[in-house]
């Protein structure tokens, strides 16, 4: 998101389209009733937490998209099954995988960076951590495995489909 938005801006690249996040669209569609979801499937009360991607939230669209993200998750898994982190949204901790860290090697450093995120997610006690960014996904999964976390790291879309009413 940031790469495209900021790239278009910084290099002043001509374009005719607008850039939107799929997260905002999910939220919009749920609000409009075009995307019907029901959290009833979550009978076991699986607990969810979330990673706000720096590039999407702090660096691009700010708190509104983070609020949309929460709205979508809560609609899909049930309000009471969502456990937020602190700090969150625009002030969120980076997972430590961004900025090319995942590709750069320096695995110990990357994990040391990610330890803050690990502790934060571990403290929520959530069963599932939703990562709406691939970098975050890889890193969150890695620190979970490395530091012995118990959660499952997943994308958002699968859960939406689970809750989907057609």
């Amino acid at each position, binding site marked *: 998101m940031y790469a495209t938005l900021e*790239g278009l801006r910084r290099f002043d690249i001509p374009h005719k389209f607008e850039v939107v996040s799929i997260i905002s669209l999910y939220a919009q569609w749920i609000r409009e009733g075009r995307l019907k979801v029901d959290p009833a499937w979550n009978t076991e009360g699986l607990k969810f937490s979330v990673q706000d991607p720096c590039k999407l939230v702090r660096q691009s669209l700010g708190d509104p998209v983070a609020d949309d993200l929460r709205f979508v998750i809560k609609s899909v898994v049930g309000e009471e099954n969502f456990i937020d982190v602190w700090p969150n949204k625009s002030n969120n901790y980076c997972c430590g995988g961004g900025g090319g860290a995942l590709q750069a*090697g*320096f695995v110990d450093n990357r994990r040391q960076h990610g330890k803050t995120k690990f502790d934060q997610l571990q403290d929520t006690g959530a069963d599932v951590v939703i990562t709406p960014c691939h970098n975050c996904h890889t890193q969150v999964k890695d620190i979970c495995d490395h530091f012995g976390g118990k959660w499952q790291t997943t994308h958002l879309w699968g859960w939406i*489909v689970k809750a989907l009413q057609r």
Partner: protein
Amino acid sequence: MSENYNLSKLRTRLKKQIEQAVPEARIDYCLTCGLCASGCPASGIEDMDPRKFLRYLVLGQDDIILQTNWIYSCSLCQRCKYACPMGIDVGRLVYEVKGMRPVEDRPKNLQKSCDLQKAGNSTGIPNDDFVWVVGDILEEIHETEPEWSDLKAPMDKVGAKFYLNQNAKEPTVEPEEMVPLWKILHAVGIDWTYSSKWWDGANYCLFTGDPEDWELTTRLQAETVDDLGCTTYINTE
């Protein structure tokens, strides 16, 4: 034993270079308050933190800056800038320093991801493979999930309202992860398309420190979307 810096004649070559490239750098404004270091998850790694990073620049200790691998621990996340009283974007400066590394001294994989991206996508699979994988998976769904027999994954559909990108990880490693997204879009009923030319949602050229590469990849991407005539670019992450 602490170091001794002889500043009888102060030289700050690196700092000046960065300031030239980033007019809003404001390195000199730093109050050394430590707020950035307090909030940075990378503080302490390689015995560095954002405040020290700035301080070395100010005191002209260029070697330390050019050698530290901390620049690959800084994720350019801008948490420092978010609260810094002077609004200094240390990540932005780190980005410049990354670009100052000779290409051959950079972490191999990172540079490779960017180079591949320039050629099309960060994993380097041929675009045809992407088209094939999409088609293949779609067919499988049609066969195995009758309630989704009308599911679509349009490719290069000129005039579609929405352009959708796809992180290269899915078609290469976990293709089934693409399906939920299609289902959602189908359920909502929007008019969307992939592009077989430029479909990768990631962009690693943002992280290598070479603005030309970043510019190139963004430009190629923009052209693709405009060529298709889509009015909305949906970013999937």
